[in-house]
């Protein structure tokens, strides 16, 4: 039985490094801003990892442990360069890469399904200049389902017994 993971926060960042959605699950809610900073600083490490991966021609999406503060921050980048940043609560246990990859892939799927929502583009001008704006708007307050999917993943991670 692998040790249980606790998700503290999840961040989706667009290819141009604009935040799409930052969701925090840590119990004292006052730290929400902290995870914004964590997500933003992680982009540095992600840049570094991408450069390293580019040198070795690796196409791996999972970027591994980015850094440790009072949470362990993991990174994942989709093929379309949307970064998914996961903050796990620190515990003195080995975190299996496969677990983090599974969570990342679930989050990626949630994101993909939300972006595929045709209503997202209903009012968008048809020229693809604003495509990035459409992608970013997936995380806006208006679209509840994306949040719900992410929250559900968090619940599934934190309560594996229920799953």
């Amino acid at each position, binding site marked *: 039985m692998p040790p249980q993971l606790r998700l503290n926060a999840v961040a989706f960042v667009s290819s*141009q*490094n*604009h*935040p*799409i959605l*930052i969701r925090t699950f840590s119990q004292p809610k006052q730290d929400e*801003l902290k995870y*914004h*900073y964590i997500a*933003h*600083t992680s*982009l*540095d*490490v992600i*840049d*570094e*990892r991408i*450069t*390293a991966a580019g040198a070795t021609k*690796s196409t*791996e999406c*999972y*970027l*591994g*442990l980015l*850094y*440790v*503060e009072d949470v*362990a921050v993991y990174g994942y980048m989709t093929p379309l360069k949307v970064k998914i940043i996961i903050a*796990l609560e*620190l*515990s*003195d*246990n*080995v*975190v*299996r*890469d*496969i*677990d*983090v990859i599974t969570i990342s892939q679930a989050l990626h799927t949630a994101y993909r399904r939300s972006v595929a929502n045709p209503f*997202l*583009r*209903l*009012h*968008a*001008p*048809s*020229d693809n200049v*604003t495509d990035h*704006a*459409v992608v*970013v*708007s997936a*995380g*806006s307050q208006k679209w509840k389902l994306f949040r719900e999917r992410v929250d559900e993943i968090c619940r599934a991670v934190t309560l594996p017994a229920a799953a």
Partner: protein
Amino acid sequence: MNSYPPELLAQLAPVMFVAGLDAPNPQDASATQGTPSKQQDPFVILKHRLREALIAQRKVAIWQPEKAKVFQAVLVDTDVRFPPRKLPPAEDQQFHPLHSPLSPLTPTSPLYPDGLIAPIWIRKHTTLVPSVFVLFKRIYEHPPAPPNLSGTEHADYDREREAEERKRDTELSAEIAQRKRSTNERSIKLTAVLMASRRMLDDPALDARLTFIRRQSGLDPRAALFVLSPVTQSEIGDFVRSLQEALYEPALDYYSNHSKRVRRKRNRHSQGTTLAMPLSPLGAGNSPRPLRPEGWTVRYEHKMACFAEFRGEDEVALKHYQDAYAALLVMFGSTAILPPRTKRWAEAKVLADCVSVKICKLYLYNNEHSMALAHHNSHMRKFSDLSRGWGIGEETFEFWSWLARQHRVFAELLEQGVRTNLKIPKHLPVPPPTAAKVAAQAAAPQRGPLEADALRALGLNPTHALQHPGFYYYMAAQCTEQRRERFLRALDSESSQHVSLSPGFSNEKKVDHLAIALELYTRAYELFKKNSASQQGRQQLWIAYRIAQTYFESGKFDMAVRFFERIAKTYRREKWDAMLRPLLSTWYACAQQLGDMELSVHLLLEMLGHRLVIDQDDPESVQEDLLAVLQSTVPSNPEQPLIVDLSESGPLLDTTTIFWTSDISVGESSAFQITLSAPPLPPISELPFASLSIYFADDLPPIVIHDASADDDMAPPLVQRVALGDLRPPQGGEDPVPREELRAKLRWDPGSSLILTGSLGSDLPGTLSVSKLVLTLKQNTWTVELPLQPNSPRLGLVREPQWLRSVTPIRFMPLPGEVHSSVTIHNKPHRISVAVGHHAPAYLGEEFPIVVDVTNTDDRELEIVVDVLLHPLEVEHAVSSITFDGQSSTSLIKGVTFGTLAPGVNMSKTLLLSVEGAIGDRTLDISVQSQTTSTTAPPPPVTSPDSPPLHTDTSETLRTLVIPSVEPIKFEQTVKYRRSTKKAAGLADIATFEDDFWDDAGEAYVSTVMTCSGQSGISVESVKLVRKDGPRAKVVDCFIDTDEEDFLSEWLSGDEFCDQCRIALSRDEESSPEDLIPGPGHYEISWRRLLSDGSKGSLSTSSFSLPRLEPPTDGLIALLDIPSVAKLHSPVSMHLIVRNNRPTRSANVVVQLDLDPVTDGFIVSGLRQGRLPVLMPGAEERLTWNLIPVECGYVKIPKMKVTDRRAVIDAQLPNASGGKAEGEDVAVVDVRMDVQPGDGASAVVYGPRTGTILVLP
């Protein structure tokens, strides 16, 4: 690290005392050497260099993982004294063993009675007691003997010298012996180094003297006596190295002995703990308890760890440090053993922290990063737990101060390590093992090392992932902030309750927390900067933000502002609004503190742009603040408007600019709408905007809309429309028409919008767009300009473009598809029609006419100019050219003018394309350029003669033609050859020297088939064979000469005509028979194309030369010449010419005539069988038979066999056996049928059966 005693942290190395290297005093120098210049004394230099070399080789440091055999050298006096080893008992107490003055058992010791171990103990071993003692001494050197000594004098000198040397050596030995006694007491190795001059080294007496000194002084036999003469710097390095090499082992022995001693004591102690515990002599009830057994364990383990460290045995040291640490934890676990907040407790805490650092360091030496980090974390966790018990838990500043110190020490340790050899691991994910690797793993019998690998592949414990020291500095800084927070809370409660909370509190008051935090953040910042590979430096920005916050809290607002400026740039660009919000509000607070009103206005506007609400209950606060600032203050420069560009951050008003169409023609207009809408929150309705200017990208003058809100008190409607009318750029030189002043209410209630409608057009082609909108805010002396983008995208907000359809009621219509933000104006297209007429394909040799017909279907007069480009053709021999309007070219004809065409007028010109050489498609580009004749507006004056006037209204119509070309007449020629039966002229024949001598070599027959292959027919006007007789060939006759009339007619497609031409051939000695003979003439056909309307085209001539001739050559040949018809019973002659055409070989020819009496229809007279005379090359022999036919009809000629024996004879020469000689058959050719095809290679060979003769009765 500075907060801990350096002795407890520094890396230990064996200690070497070095004596006798002190700078010499002047008397010594003058007494020994007597040289006036002390600088030149080689021994002074030698000592100086030795000192340098020994001291410089090792610096006391915490991080020193190298294991070179290097001593910590301490320079001492020659008569240095060691500290007393064991104190004699204070009183006469026989029962007590002796104890060191630092022992807790010694009442005078600082540790008495229950101290653990003091830094002074380590200092004793690093500075007061060495493991080896090196004594440098000069050996006595007698002055050299004067050169002119007699025998007795010499003996005297020797005796004197010996006595003196013996005396001095004895003194030296005594000195060394005394030192030896003191070192022996502590079993310290003593080594003497005797310095002698180079001359002395060669002295034969030196060995004996050294042995004497060693014996006398009682030095060890091994590695105890060195002799050194003044040498160079590098040799000194070698000496120091070899000296240490030799002494390293004794040093290790020394520390091992210490370890053994301590281990013995520990074992004894742990066996009989309480019994051996001596009671203090002052054992009164109130005195503190003596040191407990756990304490002794800590003491002994720590000592052993130190000795192991001296020996360089890191593993052993680590083990003992861990034991000491474990014992310390046990002690801390009980308040009875170590009562909190006592002196001993504080000492023990320092010791525990230091031991912990040492353990981390030793792990890191061995690259066990995760072990080191795990220990560091567990140390902090355990002592956090303990702290709670001690009443200095997480709510106290003491705890956070301690925690900050732990992080900081760890960071400093890493920083030192990184500077030398420590590598921080990169926690890159391990790629999943490949199938091959898994298979190899399964197959491998030993699984030990691979399993560790597999563990890593599974994952990583994040708490064991070592990072660069910047992170730990950052954590230390955060802990320091926590510490400050707790301190401030304590300060509050102190002021309210007037009670002193803890003893450390007054000390804490003196601490400048912010300065510490700032220092830590700055170090973290530098390390992040150094370690970051990203150019953005977002991690640095985060630290910089913390630095700025700290500056803000410590009141250094100007510094904070500088940081904020830099940080905000990236956050704005990457649209991390959530992070910008606290930044902006702190920044604004700074600006307020600094009294920088421009910055305040800027920041407040930016906050409005970010939709930032500082106080959720009072969303108006930002606007109110802004109004208050504008009303109550004066700008620093009232003349200059303050420009606040919010394009990087969010704009104050959301703007969209839409053009109805993106392409219009000159003179038309495109409608546009500019929408400026206010956000629902925060309100900006009170902002006193004075005007709105609209700037266009073209020459259009800007439009200014003035505020009309003062006109009445009515609130502006939700959607306000202002018509701007039709806008056009002014014509050159013409003054813009003064417009009436536009007025609108420039106030925006939440969610309301102002829509500017109008249309835009121009009389000149170009692109028109709105370049920017500028809102001007005016209040008292303040003038603030807010430039806005014509289209402001707001992140995460996708809006459908909408077009205002009506104001009452408000109706919008969505604009699907692409949205135009600019309009392009084109000239009206010219309507001309271009028709190109021709009858492809073109015939080779013809001037092919192409009619270019231009009709002006426009309603303007157009000037037409045509260019024609002929593309080059990549085919060999292809030649083509064009002729148009009198110009000829092979590629481009430019500027053929068609003149000015009035509307409806049409004009055509004929372009001639001449195609020659080879067939193939010719490509032509015809460009028809039209230009309006500017009768209405004269063209603007041309500024530069080179550049055409910019506003000429031209357009171009392009046509591309592909003209295939074919041959009008296809020629097919076949050639046949015939041998000559004439006898060749003899060698000396005088006629051969005549100029017109024709050396007959047979004839060639050329038959030519001319086919009309083109689509349309041609009318042939003349056909002739133009003769061009050569030396080897000439045309004898042909049909055309006599029968030309038959050819002159209209040839239609597929018609064929044939001509036969006879050519006489001649031998030529100068040209070899292999050379081809050029055709002796060509056909020339003049023709006209038959056009579809029945007329005929221009006269064209095609010419085709006769083929090149290649008469066949043969070697030995027999030609049979016989008439075709004979009369019964009248004799005919039959001739056989045997001709040897071989260039070198002669021929030996046998002729045999086979007469079959049954079937033959002839009576033959002549040679039946016989040998001809030998035929030399070039010679021929003629045989004649008379035949009388006896049968009618086609009668077969008698069979004839001609054999050349020559080759056979050649072959038979080696063996002279005669036998029946078989020869080589010679071809017999019937001259009547001698026609050979022209390829020459295979001549038709007639066998012995030749043809027949028609015998008539």
